[in-house]
């Protein structure tokens, strides 16, 4: 399980646009680098990121080797109701990480 950091406001007004910043600890090996012996280092990246708000997907991204290591993704969503935001990262070699954050909307 990889270390992830997610920044979601704990409280928001109904209808407010909230900014969500996510960071996942991952080396994002591109598959184009070689060792000193000339062997190609196999690709090992996060390929997919999703965010769902109370079970409904609100944001999805497909990542490629051109993402920097420890990929940062920041996006926004409308605070509609109190509940939880589920974040999921999946990638090569069965990589999977999840995180959830709760938000109170009034």
């Amino acid at each position, binding site marked *: 399980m990889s270390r992830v950091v997610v920044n979601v406001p704990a409280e928001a007004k109904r209808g407010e*646009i*909230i900014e969500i910043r996510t960071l996942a600890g991952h080396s994002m090996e*591109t598959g*184009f*680098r*070689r*060792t*000193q012996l000339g062997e190609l*280092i196999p690709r090992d990246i996060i390929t997919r990121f999703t965010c769902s*708000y109370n079970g*409904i997907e*609100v*944001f*999805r*991204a*497909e*990542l*490629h*080797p*051109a*993402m*920097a*290591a420890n*990929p*940062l*993704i*920041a*996006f*926004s*969503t*409308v605070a*509609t109701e109190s509940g939880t935001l589920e974040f999921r990262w999946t990638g090569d070699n069965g990589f999977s990480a999840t995180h959830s954050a709760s938000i109170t909307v009034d």
Partner: protein
Amino acid sequence: MTTRRQFLVLACGAAAGAAQAQLPPNIEALRKAALQQAVRKVTGDAPVRRGKVQLNVPPLIDNGNSVALSVDVESPMTSAEHVRAIHVFTEKNPQPYIITAHLGPRAGRARISTRARIGDTGAVTAIAQLSDGSFWSDSVKVIVTLSACLEEGLI
């Protein structure tokens, strides 16, 4: 008997031949074609117009391994009119793709930011797909002093 002159001519010829055989194919043209193909895969031959999209990326990049970039698209983000997807490409990486983000009316604001690896001085392009099926783009030329992707032999 081989004179010195003949030997030199022969040796230089052989070296030049070897060099020619090892010359890589025209990488620039290959990468341009790969970029165009990637864009066509997204747009499916629909016209891509300039405007509505603002790609924020520093024009001078010291370290291509981590380049902060953000994309803003002008859109009211209602269920009738919103941004469906934002695609970001680079011209000079081994593969043109950076990220594809799928948004919807629940995003509220059409803006994403992330960090990318950029291989060489060239253009970075963002393409937004709107809910009416139109495509809008913005392109920024960036100068990279320390390239990503060229760190072979460091590990």
